[in-house]
């Protein structure tokens, strides 16, 4: 089973190698903060999540097809990213959801919040599970009062 700590480590290593000096100082959390502050297209954040999914699932790049679009409201990015994930071998859209009602349209994308590193770990864990990889659950923050 892949732990959340492993996902965090993978995300940070990929982000630092691609967008930092490779000395371990830059983390994905820095990239997310930078995105939410500067309002530019978060190519680095998306690419890091996608690359971590490849690395942790052991899939070659051409085995998966992705579409990712950060969502915007009237003013700026909302912090959510819409993803479409397709298994290229079977052609099956893994993010498709068919509602119970026959007259409701199928949704083929999933919008996930990526405003913190914990949420980025959740996103990577979500895609790994879609690919059949067992991932540790996020610990609950709730407790007895």
């Amino acid at each position, binding site marked *: 089973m892949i732990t959340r700590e492993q996902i965090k480590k993978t995300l940070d290593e990929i982000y630092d190698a691609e967008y930092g000096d490779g000395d371990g100082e830059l983390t994905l959390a820095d990239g997310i903060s930078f995105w939410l502050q500067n309002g530019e297209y978060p190519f680095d954040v998306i690419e890091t999540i*996608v690359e971590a999914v490849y690395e942790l699932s052991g899939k*070659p*790049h*051409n*085995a*998966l*097809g*992705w*579409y990712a*679009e950060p969502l915007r409201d009237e003013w700026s990015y909302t912090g959510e990213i*819409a993803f*479409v994930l*397709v298994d*290229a071998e*079977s*052609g*099956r*859209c893994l993010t*498709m959801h*068919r509602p119970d009602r*026959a*007259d*409701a*349209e*199928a*949704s*083929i*994308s999933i919008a996930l919040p990526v405003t913190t590193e914990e949420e980025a770990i959740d996103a990577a864990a979500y895609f790994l599970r879609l690919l059949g990889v067992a991932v540790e659950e996020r610990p609950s923050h709730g407790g007895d009062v």
Partner: protein
Amino acid sequence: MITRKQIKQALDEAYTARYGGEEEGEALEFAQAIDDWFESGEYPFWVLEPLFDAIERLSGKPPCALGWYAEPVCDELGYSGHIIFVLVDAESGRCLTLSHSKSLNQHARVSVSLPITTEEEAIDAVAYFLQLLGVPVEERVSESAS
């Protein structure tokens, strides 16, 4: 075989059905929807919805048999006129806009980007998706002449 004229008619009818005027029997032209998009600079749901309606109708698919993702492309100056589409057959779950990569290091592509700046281009887009769905469509007549 579906002709380009039938596609134009289906687009006009789908646009009228969704956004028809107040007067009964008033017919709208889909070309106007595209013009309105570039004038308004707003998200063109009134272009996308009739486009999908026309594809559904002409392909003979039941409502909600297709899953779509569509995103108009923006550059620094506004909408570029290109729209990115992902099309999935909701019954089989198969992504119809998928194109494979032979290189192990390259992602497979799941989307296509099509220009929709004129009615002819909208007809091309509908024809493209109909062909993906296995429907034969008349080829666009070449504009060049000897």
